[in-house]
């Protein structure tokens, strides 16, 4: 009997936490998912749409050059990925089948550098890593986000969701309170967006530069006066996975322009 109860409890627990696509989008109705672009002024939207004037393309250009450039005696990224990487960024973060680790795009680029090009990993938030990730992400422009949150990714998805829904900082606010419960309303002079990561790496006016999603998450944590995590932290990658699952189907926009 005891064994049966234990089995039932196990089934209940796994039933409660079993990740599924509807669970991911339950926080926002599928019909109300809106990209951060729709909260911008028409002028900023026009700047993002202009493939010449959008300053994010300075990094995309640089990324394209780095992609073709061999590293000492090792082949360039281009040598393996000759056909390009269209649609690939829309599937990240993703479980790396070899190490079983959850990798975001930046992590995947660095893994390629270390294992295949025998080079040192690039520093998170460095111009070179931003350039390469923007170049790869830009090849998925207009592709719908489609991340896998099943199997080994499930626990990371739950970890990300927990981070998103947990109150933190001096202001005692969770991400969810602004970006799920009160999006579209005003926070000082700004309209609160839904907090999707589909435009990152993105050019932010506040930064006067291109920046990664982790830099944005750090800003959000700092905004509620919580201790931000270091860029590239596994917890932030889990949050990235949760955000992508929450925005499933939304078009990729990198390099987007944000306030």
């Amino acid at each position, binding site marked *: 009997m005891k064994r049966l109860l234990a089995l039932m409890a196990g089934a209940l627990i796994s039933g409660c936490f079993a990740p599924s696509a509807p669970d991911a989008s339950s926080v926002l109705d599928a019909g109300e998912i809106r990209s951060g672009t729709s909260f911008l002024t028409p002028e900023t939207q026009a700047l993002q749409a202009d493939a010449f*004037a959008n300053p994010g393309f300075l990094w995309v250009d640089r990324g394209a050059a780095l992609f073709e450039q061999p590293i000492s005696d090792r082949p360039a990224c281009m040598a393996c990925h000759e056909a390009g990487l269209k649609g690939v960024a829309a599937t990240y973060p993703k479980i790396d089948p070899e190490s079983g680790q959850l990798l975001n795009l930046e992590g995947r680029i660095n893994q390629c550098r270390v294992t295949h090009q025998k080079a040192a990993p690039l520093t998170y938030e460095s*111009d070179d890593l931003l350039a390469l990730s923007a170049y790869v992400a830009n090849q998925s422009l207009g592709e719908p986000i489609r991340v896998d949150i099943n199997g080994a990714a499930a626990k990371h998805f739950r970890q990300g969701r927990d981070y998103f829904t947990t109150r933190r900082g001096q202001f005692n606010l969770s991400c969810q309170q602004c970006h799920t419960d009160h999006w579209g309303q005003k926070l000082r002079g700004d309209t609160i967006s839904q907090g999707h990561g589909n435009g990152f790496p993105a050019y932010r006016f506040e930064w006067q530069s291109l920046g990664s999603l982790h830099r944005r998450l750090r800003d959000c944590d700092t905004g509620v006066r919580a201790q931000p995590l270091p860029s590239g932290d596994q917890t932030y990658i889990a949050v990235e996975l949760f955000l992508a699952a929450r925005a499933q189907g939304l078009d990729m926009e990198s390099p987007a322009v944000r306030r």
Partner: protein
Amino acid sequence: MAGIRLAVPSPVHQGEIIEIKALIQHAMESGFRRGARGEVIERNILTRFECDLNGTLIFAADLHPGVAANPLITFHLKAMEPGTLTFTWTDQNGEIWQDSAALEIT
């Protein structure tokens, strides 16, 4: 690093008024900001932009600390003669960045 992006329509008709765009990657640090420890971040700006067509100055602009990072400059030109457009940015220390584009007239 200084990435430069130029947009020059070409070929164009004689007498056509064309729009030219030039974007450069630059911090345009105003000198008024402070870092995390309260220290002044030194001014570092571009002060001059010039565009030449076959060596003749056709457009110039003085830049000041109020200009945002990665300045985008857009101007118009009546295309009368073909040739090479040379774009030159000069910073406060006299360092120069240059790029050029061909202007073809049909």
